């Protein structure tokens, strides 16, 4: 069984503004939401900057229990899912609950809360034999990564397959990909899918400090995230969530839903190379791209835009440039490829879903979001990175690609042409 899968709703919680509209306003204006960290005192860290969400759970009508006890990344997901379901005009009470699925990704899950309580039970890190009496009785909710999908499924009455995906920085793309398979292969008709992370905490910032992956441009946070620019010096941490309502095409049509686009294909491969390193050839990412094109029976020359992983590390930007050239051939030079991480930072597992949401909005508005802060070309990265200013363009087929620690290389194809053009 291979059924068509439509995108019918979008919800976003991103740095720079809550909601899909605020998110698109930021992207289309080429503004950056990176700043000095305010969520905790980052003194002593090498990288003290991040793209933070100005998020108050009280503003979003979360029930008191969620407002008070749920982790920030779960609150993000519930708010984004709520917006997506409303946007889709989906009456969850009217759906067969066993045919509604959830597929959400997160790279680090409840880490922030786990760290918070760790400090309490260990007397500030002095004890290995921690004292359980100081811990929050609901700490298991931070410990279990499936809490994310469980809480969202509960909120929207989903009773079908409920999964949490955690493939590092491709979690968001893979969660959307798993959702695509779940619907295409007939295991559900609707899937609430996306990803969320709130990793701006001392331990996560410190662990990226330790491998010098994050930008130390603490004096100029607005311009610190510079994917593809020759003077880039690492990624800027972010946080946020994006959720899409995916739906079987005829199911969406039957209820008169607005269809943004379809998922044309999804693939993921391992690079089997290094937990954090990337090759210069991009063979595995290219293979993922090729596979999505095959699934949609789409010629590579019909790709109109590539939303890059574009983290702003030298090895990533070169790897990815090579992968896209390998798959699109000379058409790569005519294809705009931008990184929204320049504006909203890198929210680890969430960003893949946020980038898919950006692609859906790009298709809707027929505008390519730019790579902010791109000034100085890198001779080894010679594609069109859409410097600084958004660009109107006829868009039908759009690719979102990502790489993650652990070697994951994923691609999602979004299409308004229905694919099948070869």
């Amino acid at each position: 069984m291979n059924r068509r899968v439509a995108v019918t709703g979008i919800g976003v919680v991103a740095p720079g503004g809550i909601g899909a509209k605020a998110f698109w306003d930021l992207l289309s204006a080429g503004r950056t939401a990176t700043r000095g960290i305010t969520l905790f005192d980052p003194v002593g860290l090498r990288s003290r900057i991040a793209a933070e969400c100005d998020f108050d759970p009280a503003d979003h009508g979360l029930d008191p229990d969620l407002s008070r006890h749920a982790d920030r990344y779960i609150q993000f997901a519930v708010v984004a899912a709520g917006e997506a379901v409303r946007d889709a005009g989906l009456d969850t009470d009217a759906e067969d609950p066993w045919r509604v699925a959830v597929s959400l990704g997160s790279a680090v899950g409840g880490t922030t809360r786990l760290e918070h309580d760790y400090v309490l039970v260990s007397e500030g890190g002095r004890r290995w034999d921690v004292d359980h009496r100081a811990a929050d009785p609901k700490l298991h909710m931070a410990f279990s990564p499936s809490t994310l999908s469980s809480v969202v499924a509960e909120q929207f009455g989903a009773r079908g397959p409920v999964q949490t995906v955690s493939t590092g920085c491709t979690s968001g793309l893979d969660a959307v990909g798993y959702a695509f398979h779940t619907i295409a292969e007939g295991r559900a008709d609707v899937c609430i899918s996306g990803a969320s992370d709130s990793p701006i905490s001392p331990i996560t910032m410190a662990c990226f400090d330790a491998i010098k992956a994050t930008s130390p441009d603490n004096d100029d946070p607005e311009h610190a995230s510079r994917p593809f620019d020759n003077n880039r010096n690492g990624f800027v941490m972010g946080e946020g969530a994006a959720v899409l309502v995916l739906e079987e095409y005829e199911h969406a049509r039957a209820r008169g839903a607005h269809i943004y686009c379809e998922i044309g294909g999804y693939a993921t491969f391992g690079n089997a190379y290094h937990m954090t390193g990337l090759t210069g050839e991009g063979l595995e990412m290219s293979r993922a791209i090729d596979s999505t094109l095959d699934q949609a029976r789409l010629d590579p020359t019909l790709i109109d835009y590539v939303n890059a992983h574009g983290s702003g590390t030298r090895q990533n930007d070169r790897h990815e440039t090579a992968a896209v050239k390998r798959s699109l051939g000379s058409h790569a030079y005519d294809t705009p490829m931008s990184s929204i991480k320049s504006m909203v930072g890198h929210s680890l597992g969430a960003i893949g879903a946020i980038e898919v949401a950006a692609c859906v909005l790009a298709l809707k508005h027929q505008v390519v979001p730019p790579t902010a802060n791109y000034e100085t070309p890198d001779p080894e990265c010679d594609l069109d990175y859409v410097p600084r200013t958004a660009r109107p363009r006829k868009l039908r087929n759009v690719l979102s690609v990502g790489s993650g620690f652990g070697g994951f290389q994923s691609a999602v194809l979004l299409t308004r042409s229905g694919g099948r053009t070869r």
Partner: protein
Amino acid sequence: MSTERPRRAVVTGIGVIAPNGQRADAYWKSVREGLGVLDRITREGCEDLPLKVAGEVRGFDASTLIEDRFLVQTDRFSHYTMAAAQLALDDAGLPRENPEEPFEIGVVTAAGSGGGEFGQRELQKLWSQGSKFVGPYQSIAWFYAASTGQISIRSGLKGPCGVVASDEAGGLDAIALAARGVRRGTGAVLVGAAEAPLAPYSMVCQLGYPELSTVEDPDRAYRPFTAGACGFVPAEGGAVLVVEDESRARDRGAAVRAVVAGHGATFTGASRWEKSREGLARAIRVALDEAGCAPEEVDVVFADALGVPEADRAEALAIADALGAHATRVPVTAPKTGIGRAYCGAPVLDTAAAVFALEHGVVPPTPNVFDICHDLDLVMSRARPAELRTALVLSRGLMGSNAALVVRRGDESAR
């Protein structure tokens, strides 16, 4: 129009690192004999916690299975998973590294707790000494994707790689993910889960589960389906399977040990055990339907067996709802009462036991359980010989997932 037979996903290799055995055959021997190994927790720093009993993997000799550097660079949960993966590759007769067609083989793991012990050590350095004392491996050792990534890199496997970060049922979801990947075209997938939740802070995190047993007598701490059911006991370890395309396996002369025939998954809410009756029954029906298998064809059920009275009742009723009159006749077993519940690893271990049970025509017993208060034919005390063609493996997670997997004997010809 294609008249090709659909691809079938079969099990060709099993690797186990469990509290009761550190190879698949050692594990099966213990399971078959109904050996109970639950015992006092001996890990440093856990002495004063109210959780006293668990299934520990003891005497794990990592050095024969994985290189020293992984002992420093990864958490214990990855040590177990990598070791089990190595054993599974060996068992399947696949090369330990760099296969000829790297894109043909993928890796999928399920993870329910990540690298908690490693993480606690780094948290301690951060908060007692400062951020500069956090080591570089924290960025790749704690997160849920660590084991999949390390296995893929170590063995040179470039096929589709995935991670289900889940509650217990995620172990079966991962197997299903692998089987579907194989049906879609991947040659083989190393799939499984192993967990290491027995470090001080990880244990503190688990204390909030209302289903956790804190009974201090190892023989009485985990007795599902009995009047004395008082919750579950956690365990570490797990299993990895090689799930492979049947024709690929036959072409290379590998033994087809079982067929992964069907899977169903539903969600009925965290700790709402009464509701899991309907969810589990539906998962069973979906799995049987996918397998093209009638309820009467199920020859043995590997129960979830949570050990919470309400949950045990819901499971017994779910089996009755889904299998009808056959439910009172089909033998049911829960070998995990001898070792505890290794979170995502638990249902993968059960699946491994199911494969052995099909091969040997034996239903293993349910250790420590002697007198049940539900209408089930639970196999107790000693193993029961039986002609087995089809096994049903059930799992429910503490966050509300229900899953069922149908596994059939490898020599059953494709219909």
